[in-house]
């Protein structure tokens, strides 16, 4: 059985929720040219190398992992910015590869995104009203006036004044800009919002404001979030389900509280050990990894963590571990279990 069949069947049974988005055995590869000019070769960079999970209605699914693990590429494939090399993404039961233009438009307004640095996605010469209402242009039945009204309503939902609609991006602080980016996502009444490191560039006191806002909006309107982050405390605060990625693959996937209480995979445990302590008396030294991350163009044989894992056995270098169910809502791929 594949990773997806395992996780989706059991996970839906456990919560009773319907999967809104289902990712099955997703692969996203990029060709990269390497080497000296005359002997240049094309190698394959495996950014996402067989990832499966699902996001259910009203729930936050988080992906954690270090830079280069493929979490952002996964998100970009879901946003239809990147084309999967293989595997599928289903939205409410429909394969995204096979939907027509009309359905694609509907999908693009139902799935919105908020990124780390909102300023880089704003045109400094456009008033933020235009920025917020831009996704609404997809829907030709919404007129100019309604776009403006919706933008104002969205601004109010994120705690800004409707009158701010005519201001320019530079007139806002970092935290306010992130609110504006969230308002843009809200304007088209989405079902799923992809949040890619939405708070990591913000000041500590502003982070809590934005996270609380995101939580309140979810409780009030039932959005699903795909939350991508590297800060584990933030992930614990935001999510119901968490997937841990390493070098393009899911290492462990679990209900959030279960994962934090009982992390199994050595990589997850290493991430937890590396996390900065909440208090000076906390010292985490459970699992320390050796070396640096291997290159995504040259993924190690067997378990891709074996070059860094302190528990690596001979079998780890030869055989890719199977995806196993280890708890009612908990899966991992490791030869130790």
């Amino acid at each position: 059985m594949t990773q997806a069949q395992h996780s989706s069947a059991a996970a839906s049974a456990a919560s009773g929720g319907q999967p809104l988005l289902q990712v099955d055995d997703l692969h996203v590869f990029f060709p990269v040219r390497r080497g000296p000019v005359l002997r240049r070769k094309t190698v394959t960079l495996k950014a996402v190398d067989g990832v499966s999970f699902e996001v259910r209605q009203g729930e936050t699914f988080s992906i954690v992992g270090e830079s280069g693990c493929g979490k952002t590429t996964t998100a970009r494939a879901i946003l239809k910015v990147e084309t999967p090399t293989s595997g599928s993404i289903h939205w409410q039961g429909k394969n995204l590869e096979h939907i027509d233009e009309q359905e694609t438009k509907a999908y693009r307004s139902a799935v919105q995104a908020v990124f780390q640095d909102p300023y880089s996605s704003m045109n400094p010469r456009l008033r933020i009203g235009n920025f917020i209402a831009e996704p609404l242009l997809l829907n030709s039945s919404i007129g100019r006036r309604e776009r403006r009204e919706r933008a104002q309503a969205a601004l109010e939902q994120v705690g800004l004044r409707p009158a701010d609609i005519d201001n320019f991006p530079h007139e806002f602080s970092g935290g306010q800009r992130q609110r504006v980016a969230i308002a843009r996502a809200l304007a088209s009444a989405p079902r799923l919002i992809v949040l890619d490191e939405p708070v990591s560039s913000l000041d500590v006191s502003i982070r809590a404001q934005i996270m609380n806002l995101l939580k309140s909006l979810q409780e009030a309107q039932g959005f699903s979030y795909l939350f991508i982050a590297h800060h584990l405390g933030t992930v614990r605060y935001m999510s119901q389900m968490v997937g841990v990625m390493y070098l393009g693959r899911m290492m462990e996937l679990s209900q959030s509280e279960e994962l934090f209480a009982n992390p199994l995979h050595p990589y997850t445990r290493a991430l937890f050990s590396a996390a900065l302590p909440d208090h000076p008396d906390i010292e985490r030294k459970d699992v320390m990894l050796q070396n640096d991350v291997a290159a995504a163009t040259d993924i190690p044989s067997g378990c891709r963590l074996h070059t860094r894992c302190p528990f690596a056995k001979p079998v780890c270098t030869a055989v890719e571990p199977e995806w196993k169910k280890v708890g009612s809502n908990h899966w991992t791929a490791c030869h130790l279990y």
Partner: protein
Amino acid sequence: MALLEVEDLRTQLHSRRGINKAVNGVSFKLDTGKSLGLVGESGSGKSMTALSILRLVPQPYARIAGGAIRFEGHDLLEKSDREMRQIRGGSIAIILQDPMTSLNPVFSIGYQIAESVRIHQRLTGRAQLAKVIESLRRVRVPAPEIRVRDYPHQFSGGMRQRVAGAIAIACRPKLLIADEATTALDATIQAQYLDLLRTLQRELDLAFLFITHDFGIVAKMCDDVAVMYAGRIVEYAEVREIFNRPAHPYTLALLEAVPKLDARVDRLYAIPGAPSSGYAEQPGCPFAPRCALAIQQCHVAKPPLTVVKAGHSAECWRAQEVYATDIALQAGADASAGRRSGTPEAGA
């Protein structure tokens, strides 16, 4: 005598908008072999304090308007530019956030480490190379004899930051300033790097000044903590004191605003508003407009420096009260969540 003693430091930034009192009367001491964390949000003046120590404040906007910075007993503010050049990279070194911007892409890293050895210790030839390789070995770069000829792009992010560390320690500084030095690194690489810094501190008897926004770094690395807000140190204490019994509402708020790894909270405390700028000076406490515990007095008069316990002080009208009671800012939150009292378990 303290290794570094900053007294009533004032650094101002002049612009068309007026004068920004970025550092507005900062005082602290740092002993040899100890670590001090300067924590604050952007604009709090923490980086400007560090840059003032090295006289690297942005010219011509910034001006050190007053105070004293005594290093080994000598006031750095009275040194000539030439003397400061000897001190920078010599007995005081700095590691910045992004090594890719501080390393020159067209020179080998060996050449760049050698630069400081050449200038400060006047070593040449084989002695110079030996010194360079020794520094690389100290920061645990594998195969330093070979890597010394490599260029910055041939190193990973974590290794590049180690190279920056090698440059910093090459001339055996007494004080190392780390300005958000690990912020750009991945979690596992950051942990390795911080462990390395601790080892170096022990081996070389270094004093550390950590400039950070992250209480996690403080918890892991520092002996003492100074919390900065609007150009001033609003609270100063030994690290466990800060976490167990903060005396300033701003510290309390920051600690409650960070989601914990070890406990699930339902709602974080969010400090309302945004950090105040150093341009407009209010009559009262600069934090008062955002403070959940502010009283009338806070808005009209500058709070005094209150010593709540030997070595623990806060600039707040209600410092004694905040220190003495277990206040939770977030309604419904457990007052002790995130803070721990009683006997701490021994570190494994």
